[in-house]
């Protein structure tokens, strides 16, 4: 798979078109003042696009960091959502109180990742 890259801003991809053949991609890139690269896959959000060198690289360090934070945030949201009114009512019991405290600890662990 080949990409005609027709938009780049601050080394980030803003516009592209995929093609099955390099020749088709070249026609498109020529028409729209772009350039052609081979599709490297992965999350485009973390591609570093070098217009001058006409290359794309995956910024895996940033990707791993951002994804880890997003996953932590997602887990926090899930844990927060698990503390339902019934769980709060059950805090009048020792078991119920411990359950909520355990969730709070899990939330704290996830927050430390942000």
């Amino acid at each position, binding site marked *: *798979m080949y990409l*005609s890259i*027709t*938009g780049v*801003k601050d080394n*980030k*991809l*803003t*516009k*592209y*078109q*995929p*093609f*099955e053949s390099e020749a*088709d991609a070249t026609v*498109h890139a020529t028409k*729209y003042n*772009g350039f052609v690269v081979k*599709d490297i*896959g*992965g*999350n*485009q*959000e973390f591609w570093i696009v070098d217009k001058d060198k006409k290359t794309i690289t995956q910024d895996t360090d940033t990707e791993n960091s951002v*994804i880890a934070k997003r*996953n932590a945030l*997602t887990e926090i*949201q*899930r844990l*927060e*959502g*698990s503390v339902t009114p019934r769980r709060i009512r059950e805090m009048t019991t020792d078991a119920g109180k411990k359950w909520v405290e355990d969730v709070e600890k899990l939330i704290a662990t996830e927050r430390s990742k942000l």
Partner: protein
Amino acid sequence: MATVNLGAIKFNWKGAYNNSTAYVADDVVSSGGNSYVCILASTGNAVSNGTYWSLMAQAGTNGTNGSNGTDLTTVLTTESDIVYRDGSGLQRLAKGTASQQLRMNSGANAPEWFTADSAGFTRGTTTTPTLNPVGWGFGAVGSSDPPLPSGTSMIYLSFMRVSPNSNTNIGVQIGDSGGLETTGYYQQTIRHWGANANESTDGFYFYSENAGAEWQGSILMTHLTNNIWISRINVSNYSNFGGGMSQNITGNGYKQLSGELTELRFVADTGSMDGASAQANIIYM
């Protein structure tokens, strides 16, 4: 002073010239499209003989495909043909079939017949999409993915059992003839479990937080104005049906393109979805 009423004075019309008829002065006949008046009585003298006949009215020039007229019979050859002009001259459009409608072709330079869908929609491709690795939609990639037609103002993507192989955004990227745009989206969704919200700027995306989920639902996109498109996402997790937690996601968003929308792709943010069991369809108008 006395007056005499002469009544109506007229030519003595004799119809078509006949060489066996005796003509007298002021008889008028037709011949070869012309009219002739008799100036000297005779029988059997042709109208071309100036001693006996004078030209009264001459027939006009027959029309031809040129500056002095148009002979449509050379263009229109069959019942219900229609004639139109292209860049060089008159052209024939053969009749359509029953219930077909007339429209301008994609080049906006000639009429053509087309069969409209009974519901008034022009439908897009119905197919089992190849979702891995590049997604599926309209524009480029292959000849089977033509651009969406100019003037498209509503797109309805429906799908089932679309499954990511990792936690990822899933949804639609749109673009103009210059390509798909990866920034400038303002898509918000809410997952109806745990009150979790999600935002995306790189597509009309919803977030699948668990690999193996099989999403079913739809994404509606409508054109507002100035290449601004409004999205509506509504999906649920098929894999949880009949057991497990019900997972539904809804949301709205917008995106302004730099040109008219012609490109659309149904993709995963990480570029990987399992299309083995997936079905998807796009209706547009």
